[in-house]
């Protein structure tokens, strides 16, 4: 019984670490925090909250990479660096979408702290 409780606590802690890594990858430590997420995945339980938040973090960051880097890259390719309109779209889009990903990661973090999945009870 004690062992099970301890295990659940550990899962919750790993879930919190995964959510924090996801947030850090979107903010202060892009790349490095993604490696942390991948390393976290190895330590996760088969079907616990830790795996859920690690996989969620990986998915969120991969989608963010596409939405931020690929889409803005395409905008620049299409419009060219010398066009004022390229910068209008790129800066406005990047700032707004990046902020939304950060907010999603913050929500995931507080859910992980509470040992809950992303969806509201």
């Amino acid at each position, binding site marked *: 019984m004690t062992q099970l409780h301890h295990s659940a606590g550990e899962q919750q802690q790993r879930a919190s670490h995964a959510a924090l890594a996801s947030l850090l990858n979107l903010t202060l430590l892009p790349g490095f925090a993604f490696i942390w997420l991948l390393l976290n995945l190895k330590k996760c339980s088969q079907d616990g909250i830790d795996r859920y938040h690690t996989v969620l973090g990986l998915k969120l960051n991969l989608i963010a990479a596409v939405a931020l880097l690929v889409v803005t890259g395409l905008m620049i390719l299409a419009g060219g660096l010398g066009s*004022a309109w390229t910068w209008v779209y790129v*800066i406005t889009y990047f*700032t707004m979408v990046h*902020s939304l990903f950060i907010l999603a990661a913050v*929500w995931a973090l*507080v859910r992980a*702290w*509470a040992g*809950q999945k992303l969806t509201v009870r």
Partner: protein
Amino acid sequence: MQYQSQSVAKLYFLAAMGLFAGQILFGIILGLQYVMGDFLFPEIPFNVARMVHTNLLIVWLLFGFMGASYYLVPEESGRELYSPKLAVLMFWVFLVAGALTILGYLFVPYSGLAQMTGNGILPTMGREFLEQPTITKLGIVVVALAFLYNVGMTVLTGRKTVVTIVLMTGLVGLAVFFLFSFYNPDNLVKDKYFWWWVVHLWVEGVWELILASILAFVLIKTTGVDREVIEKWLYIIIAMTLITGIIGTGHHYYWIGTPSYWQWWGSIFSALEPIPFFMLTLFAFNTINKRKREHPNKAAVLWAMGTAVMAFLGAGVWGFLHTLSPVNYYTHGSQITAAHGHMAFYGAYVMVVLTIMSYAIPLMRGQQAKSNRMQVMEMWSFWLMTVSMVFITLFLTGAGILQVYLQRYSDAPQAFMVVQEKISLFYWMREAAGLVFLVGVVLFILSFFLPQEEKNMQAQPA
């Protein structure tokens, strides 16, 4: 409502609502003047409309802060307000002084208003946001002192909580820093230097303390989360606010004649300014997620959550966007500043006042929450105002980037008015979003005044 004297807040909230509607009306006029320069000229020239728009914002937010304080301080202190009569008297003094000032702006040429109000004796007029005649500024000081005395005595003679201590710190700071509006040196650099001590140290300093304490109060009441947990968050948030915000004033000191070290100090510390707003979001999300009960006033909880998110976006992200000195070199005073200003004021201060109104007004009427129908209307007002403000910000950001590029960055910079013509599409879209915002304001106000369905209302427990 636990104490009878809390009801004085209702007067302040009503005035705040009326002035908020006025502010948005002038915003609509102003937005139209950006694209139709002669609109309402000469009756309401652009400079007058702008002055009324910004001054009404400041005045109604002050009414909101005072109303919030009169509501929450007795409840937190566990006693009646020290002097409800003084609160009512000061309400009328402030309202009459404010109304006369706005009427003065509208019906008397500004130079004539300065002469009429004796500005020559102690000149303080003519500076952005501090356009009020000196006599009005003196009136604000009197009202602020009476207000501080009233809530201060209530706090000192009652229970002290972290919420009231943080709130009082913010309110005292608000009054103290306003005194710099009376310092008006001839040297333009010194003038601007100390002008920011009012403007910046208000909105990126002491007002954040007021914001955090009001939000903490509403979250304590609506979520049932332990006060101790919320208070710890509050301490960290206000510490980060002051650590980053005070020296962050330096981001206003780039290239205005101040020493060049401000480029570094301003850039570094103001780059850290999003941290307290980020923590505010984390705090609100965490508190709401760990709520111990479902409060019947769902609209108030929505406003509280919205405040944290929009303050982070408007003040945090959009502030960071142009705060580093090499970036600000190009963006200073462009429409990017306007984008940041709109979303930051809305997210941080407008929304927190609407949050406490949403929470407190039903309680002052003896209900825990409005009827379901009126709450739905209020939530519509939330989404209309919030989404339209996001679009206003995005359109102004687009306008600002284009403006900076064409006017300041390009190899062949174009003249200001030429560029204004080229970004007029953004101004039109901003105007459309502004009209949607106005609909949101009207719905918000109506949700308090339309008849409530008795059967759905929950009576306040005795």
